[in-house]
């Protein structure tokens, strides 16, 4: 069995309200010094056999990420 990880993040120029909410909350919890937080998604996909890199690419592009506003990275 093979496991592939796909991380999906908003493109850098796109506003990330979730990340902003976290950055602003941290000092109130006593954590200072975090200058930026970006929040994204983390998908773990299991394949029974070996993994075809191109298939994962396609899955990420069509289903996991919204290419209009998001980028993704694949880690096998």
């Amino acid at each position, binding site marked *: 069995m093979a496991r592939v990880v796909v991380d999906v993040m908003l493109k850098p*120029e*796109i*506003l990330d309200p979730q990340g902003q909410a976290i950055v602003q909350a941290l000092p109130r919890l006593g954590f200072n010094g975090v200058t930026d937080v970006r929040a994204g998604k983390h998908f773990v996909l299991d394949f029974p056999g070996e993994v075809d890199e191109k298939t994962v690419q396609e899955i990420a592009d069509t289903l996991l990420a919204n290419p209009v506003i998001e980028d993704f990275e694949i880690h096998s």
Partner: protein
Amino acid sequence: MSIDSVSRAASTPDEPLPYADLGVSKEEYERICTILGRRPTSSELAMYSVMWSEHCSYKSSKVHLRQFAQKAPKNERMLVGMGENAGVVDVGNGLAVTFKIESHNHPSYVEPYQGAATGVGGIVRDILTMGARPVAVLDPLRFGPADASDTARVLPGVVAGIAGYGNCLGLPTIGGELVFDPCYAGNPLVNVLCVGVLPADGVKYAKATGVGNIVLLFGARTGGDGIGGASVLASATFDDEGKPAKRPSVQVGDPFTEKLLIECCLEIFAEDLVVGIQDLGAAGISCATTELASAGTGGMRVNLDTVPLRDQTLAPEEILMSESQERMCAVVEPAKLDRFLEICAKWGVTATAIGEVTDTGRLEISWRGESIVDVPPRTVAHDGPVYDRPMRRPADLDALRADSPDRLERPTDLRKTLLRMVSAPNLAGKRWVTDQYDRYVQGNTVLAQPEDSGVIRVDEQTGLGVAVAADGNGRYTRLDPYQGTQLALAEAYRNVAATGATPIAVTNCLNYGSPEDPEVMWQFAESVRGLADGCQQLGTPVTGGNVSFYNQTGTTPINPTPVIGVLGLIDDVARRTPSEFADGARILLLGDTKDEFGGSEWAWTEYGHLGGRPPEVDLERERLLAQVLVDGAKDGLLVAAHDLADGGLAQALVESCLAGGVGAQVSLTGDAFVALFSESAGRAIVAVSDDRFEQLCAERGLLVTEIGVATGTDLNIDGVLSVPLDELRAAHETPLPQLFD
């Protein structure tokens, strides 16, 4: 990189600027040069280009929209008419109500969730800017065929976006529309109507008055999102493959920040801390500064370096054009500045002074120590080009009208027809959509979908409330834009009256193809004329609206689709009329039914046919019907009322039975098919428990026919059909989940 300053522009008159790429024509560019007496700087060009875009300047529609004011019926309630962010009407008890529709069509096609979400955000800020607390939302939506794969991409995203943003703001969604038609494939229509309530003496205006007063930007930081959205994305025709012809620049909404902005602004308004206020929508800072300045003392000085940025690499042109969401601009007297900032801090809202009001008559903007904009603000905001575009009656219109639905074979098995009709996507139950919307928040929702109109209590002490409905029918308008638009007006008007409210004002969202197509322009002009005449006749002024052009794929425009919103007033919401039947009530049909199937849902669902003439419209009759419905409600004579529209009497009976969980025993005279499915206007059904309402109708001269009684567990039409409610419910409620789950 050197800055294209005003002095540089003056000394390099021949330097070419890419005005065409910004959608500025050669004539328009030359006009800018004439106004300024030199070539514009790149920042000035950015401002003119967005502000003179179709979306912001209404350059193709202005000459027609004037009729709304010219033909406006006199109305003492109107506090603010067209031209401001939204119209305001006095509703008594020291309160006023503001409402308006906006479209966010193309952005919702490109990125359904965010496009729709930011559409909600934008109209809510318009309402807030008037000084009002936003209290409700309606969302008229149109998509391509229900079973098309692109609809499966667009619809769920749009609905989730509206829900995600509206719910998070704490705004109940109380109505809307859901229409499928192939003409909207690639051109979905996402219109959002917002209603707000304010103290009658608390109206705020977008004006920068008082030399030395401070101009503040508050809310979200400015980023690179949506740059050029107003002129490029919001009004560029999509190419044939249905892909955006120009690179999309999507805006992401942050409803949490908007919620804080709302509460922050309301506290600021309550303490009377602003001289003027403007939201930042399309065209961002360009729009806010020029509009505030030109409506005020006349001048403004802005230091663009002070604008809080999310992205430090933005060029000044981009800062001026950015459509970053959740931003507002206020003009504040220096003495009130500290308190203003204190309230912003309380709500965690970033606020920054970016300039001041002057009396120079110029908008002067500096960047890195250099003057980059020096313009008469009026020329940007108000004196844009105006086009009286050529018009031509569509070449195919006669053929289309000649193709009467009379040629269609009429059904013999009406039971089957009924079941197919109530499960057609346009008539099926909409809960898959509407259950995603919070209808309860704020605790004042008295009626919401699937009622004829949403009803909101605006005064808890007296029970004073408002009702709002929005309607449109692109098929009718395609067959006859003048009459079709009046039918849309009549339907919304009737929907409001059906719930017991008196219609008092109108807003509209006009969705059309390219104004450069003379046939589209003709449709547009006819619609506007129809609406203006209709409003004059009904005595309900148009208080505002929105125009969306370029809804077309290649050279094929959408059906002309005016969506008309009507606001009604109800003295005591406890007297509202619901649409659900109650066991034992007698059912009456108001108005008369003709053989009218042109543009009908029956012709469309059963044959994919669109032709002939739409139903006749008789606004005097609509007015009479409305008065009777309102008076009946006031006097407590009505158990239920439901207007007849798409799908005719059959659809209305089914809806009222299902809502009440009770069947009906109905007998009809004449041709049962016509009686059940004709879409003649000016009709409603009511349920009553005694005969006082019939007396009222007789006194007023309104045709009323008793057609049956609410009872049992079947919808039974004598000698025609009988269907158990359970079967009806399944037929009505399963289609949308099946399509979109």
